[in-house]
């Protein structure tokens, strides 16, 4: 029974990917005995499983994901957070206070106000409720400085690299701390603006060229060159 494309070919919604004894994987669906693509992407045949790696998609919340969001509303018992997803996220006041919320005493805008950025974890999410956020772990909480970028969520794994190799390399070469929100928002914090901009540029380059080979080497080279130029400038 046939597969109709080769691995890594671009497919579009409605393309007939396979017929017969196949299982519909990511971004594909079964109609009768036929498997069709749901999104534009690169098709992958993994044994009898047909997947489409989407070239463009948006972030859908998952419990446990670390995300970066913006406070868009201060409510009575917590905050509404924009996490770059179809659903707004909720952060309860008790999460931030680590104790029950006392309306008479606690002034929410003082803790987090509209426009503040936070790193948080998705604590709970299901089809009937908006995602709930938690900030009670190290590394989570309010962000006070750094560069924020928006990246296609499907490219985040590429920026992380195999076993974190890519992002570690960027951190090392630029001296910046990089937090990658799985919702496609990236925070870069460094000692100088130049360092932050360099790291941001590297990340943008990875996003644009994520499907090419030799990427790690090229990025490493680019960062080393930039560092070299910086050293030269210092010596002048």
């Amino acid at each position, binding site marked *: 029974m046939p597969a109709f494309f080769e691995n890594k070919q671009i497919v579009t919604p409605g393309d007939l990917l396979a017929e017969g004894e196949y299982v519909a994987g990511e971004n594909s669906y079964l109609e009768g005995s036929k498997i069709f693509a749901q999104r534009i992407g690169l098709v992958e045949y993994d044994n009898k499983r047909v997947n489409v790696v989407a070239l463009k998609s948006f972030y859908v919340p998952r419990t446990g994901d670390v995300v970066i969001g*913006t*406070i*868009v509303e201060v409510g009575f018992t917590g905050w509404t957070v924009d996490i770059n997803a179809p659903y707004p996220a909720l952060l309860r006041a008790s999460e931030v206070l680590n104790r029950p919320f006392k309306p008479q005493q606690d002034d929410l805008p003082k803790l987090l106000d509209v426009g503040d950025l936070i790193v948080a974890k998705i604590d709970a999410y299901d089809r009937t409720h908006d995602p709930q956020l938690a900030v009670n772990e190290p590394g989570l909480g309010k962000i006070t400085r750094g*560069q*924020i970028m928006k990246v296609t969520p499907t490219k985040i794994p590429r920026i992380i690299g195999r076993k974190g190799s890519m992002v570690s390399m960027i951190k090392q070469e630029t001296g910046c701390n990089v937090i990658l929100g799985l919702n496609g928002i990236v925070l870069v914090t460094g000692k100088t603006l130049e360092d932050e901009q360099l790291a941001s540029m590297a990340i943008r380059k990875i996003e644009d060229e994520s499907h090419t080979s030799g990427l790690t080497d090229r990025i490493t080279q680019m960062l080393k060159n930039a560092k070299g130029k910086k050293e030269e400038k210092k010596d002048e």
Partner: protein
Amino acid sequence: MSVITKVKKKEIEQFISKDKRTDGREMNDYREMRIEQGIIERAEGSARVLLGKTDVLVGTKIASGEPFPDTPNDGVLTVNAELAPIASPSFETGPPDENSVELARIVDRGIRESKMIDTEKLCVEPGKKVFVVFVDIYVLNHDGNLIDAAALAAVSALMNTKMPNYDYKDGEVKIKPGYTQLPIKQHPVTVTCAKFNDKLVVDPWLEEEQAMDARISFAIDDDFNICAIQKGGQGYFEPKQVLEAAKIAKDKAKQLRKQLDW
């Protein structure tokens, strides 16, 4: 994100306080500008302006109608603006809101007060029949400074506008083949400055607009007269800043006119 983050706002303010901008421009630089004329053949005139990623299309239509009672010898100009929901996640469908009305009226003022169109030449029969020029502004993508982009597109579209030839018999305007260009006397240029404390920047893009204190726009005619001014935003200007902005607008208008060959 439609809400600007505090971190971003602070960054923009810090840059500007040091006479720099987050997108690499100089304080008085416009973004990359592209103008295309005549892209809507059905319309009597049209122009599309790309100012950075701000994208505005203007189409003009000519119809015959009655003059206003207080100006019986003049044709009619009417300017309308649509902030189409395609242009931004923050634009909603529905009747024109205060932003689209303000935009239309600012562009209108620049054209009208500069006396760009020779409206007497649009008169068919005084008091009874004149030509009406409709200028419809369509924002396709909002990335800041819709005013300058829309004004530029409107003026370009009018420069591109053809008036149909006609016969006038028994109170009826009968269109016949052939065209003449819309009679134009001036080419107003509008320049908008945004205020950040004691600094002014020209052509604020979307993030700068979200972070600014206030903005002020000047429409300048070919002889460097100021024809229209509009201050907008929740903040305020010091009087000396207003004069400074007026001077910047005059200089930029000169530059733009040269660049566009107007």
